[in-house]
């Protein structure tokens, strides 16, 4: 390939119009031609400036709101994930040793009794600093039975991360940008309180949200599909409900 032919292809590349079949030959030429590499950089610079010549158009406010909601949710999830999880209290470890899916053995029964006693003892006093994170796995819901979710809650930091899979917002509601998943705290005997939005993860299959407040006194966390921007009270179908353990 001559430098003249190379310039033709570099110009095409600079505006994104290079035919795929011509890329290999151009690469080969560039490997051995400093002048063309330099020219390629200049033309590319010119090409990228073409986009900047478009007259700006003010986007709808919902774009910024939705974008920043997702950015902030991911930022909080990152910082929460960076906090090292402490090992469970020993009475929880004991509880976890109860054989699952089988009848209680005598040992399991004793372990359960011990765990119960210790939990009651623990609940009687204030939580020590750095209390263990609480994990509440949940599956299924009235609206979307295939949904799975996990709630991680740190009572000391008053921070919870809700991660769900199996939600089908675009398929159910016909457009991700028109609707949002809103998270609600359901106090025992009270009206639902808006808490956060679920943000779709980079894999596209999971949704997560950070709830930065105490869950004390809450009976459940629910998620509903709401118009983008959210609602003051639930108006859409409930897609997820996480019952919270008493005394959380």
């Amino acid at each position, binding site marked *: 390939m001559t430098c003249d032919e190379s310039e033709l292809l570099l*110009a095409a590349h600079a*505006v994104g119009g*290079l035919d*795929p079949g011509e890329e290999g030959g151009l690469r080969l030429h560039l490997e051995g031609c400093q002048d063309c590499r330099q020219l390629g*950089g200049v033309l590319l610079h*010119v090409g990228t*400036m073409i986009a900047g010549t478009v007259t700006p158009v003010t986007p709808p406010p919902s774009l910024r709101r939705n974008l920043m909601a997702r950015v902030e949710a991911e930022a909080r999830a990152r910082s929460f994930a960076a906090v090292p999880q402490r090992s469970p209290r020993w009475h929880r470890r004991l509880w976890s040793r109860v054989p699952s899916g089988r009848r209680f053995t005598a040992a399991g029964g004793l372990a359960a009794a011990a765990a119960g006693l210790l939990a009651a003892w623990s609940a009687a006093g204030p939580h020590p600093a750095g209390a263990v994170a609480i994990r509440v796995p949940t599956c299924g819901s009235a609206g979307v039975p295939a949904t799975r979710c996990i709630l991680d809650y740190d009572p000391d930091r008053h921070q919870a991360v809700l991660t769900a899979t199996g939600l089908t917002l675009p398929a159910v509601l016909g457009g991700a940008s028109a609707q949002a998943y809103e998270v609600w705290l359901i106090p025992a005997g009270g009206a639902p309180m808006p808490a956060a939005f679920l943000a779709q993860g980079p894999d596209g299959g999971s949704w997560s949200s950070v709830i930065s407040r105490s869950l004390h006194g809450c009976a459940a966390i629910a998620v509903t599909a709401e118009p983008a921007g959210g609602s003051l009270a639930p108006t859409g179908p409930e897609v997820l409900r996480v019952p919270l353990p008493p005394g959380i």
Partner: protein
Amino acid sequence: MITDERAVELIAQGSPEGMELLYDRYGSLAYAVALRVLRDASAAEDVVQEAFLSIWRGAATYRPDRGGVRSWLCTVVRNRSIDRTRGRAGRSRDELPLEHVAAGTSSSDTWTEVVAELDREHIRGALERLPAEQRTTIELAYFGGCSQSEISTRMRVPLGTVKGRTRLALRTLRGVLGGWCVEQPA
């Protein structure tokens, strides 16, 4: 004033404020680019959000020696918009140039930004003054996502003519920059 590069550094550190700053500065331009390619407001919103999120997640990969933040962002938005029109998912085309081409500009201070803004004005004017067939060729490639073969078919002219028009147009646009970016250290 926080420079674009500093905003990207903040984003790479996980700061939503950096993202807010970048969006407030270039959200309108990014939306305009997406709208120009897609001609659909809803699709443009989706693409701009995806583009900014990809920058939020990949800010650490930004290389100032490849060009300014504004150009980088516009390129990401433009490429994702083109992919969307072609029904391709994810990043299927290079968002970075051929690895062998040299960097066009590497400076990032305020003065350089001012010069770059003047260059954009010159290029905008030069684009408008290009002969119609050259301008159409450039626009079909850049905003229409057409390859040169596709442009040749669409405009019913030989492939060599398309290549020649593209080169002439780029030479003209390069000329309005007065060789400024050529003299910048890589």
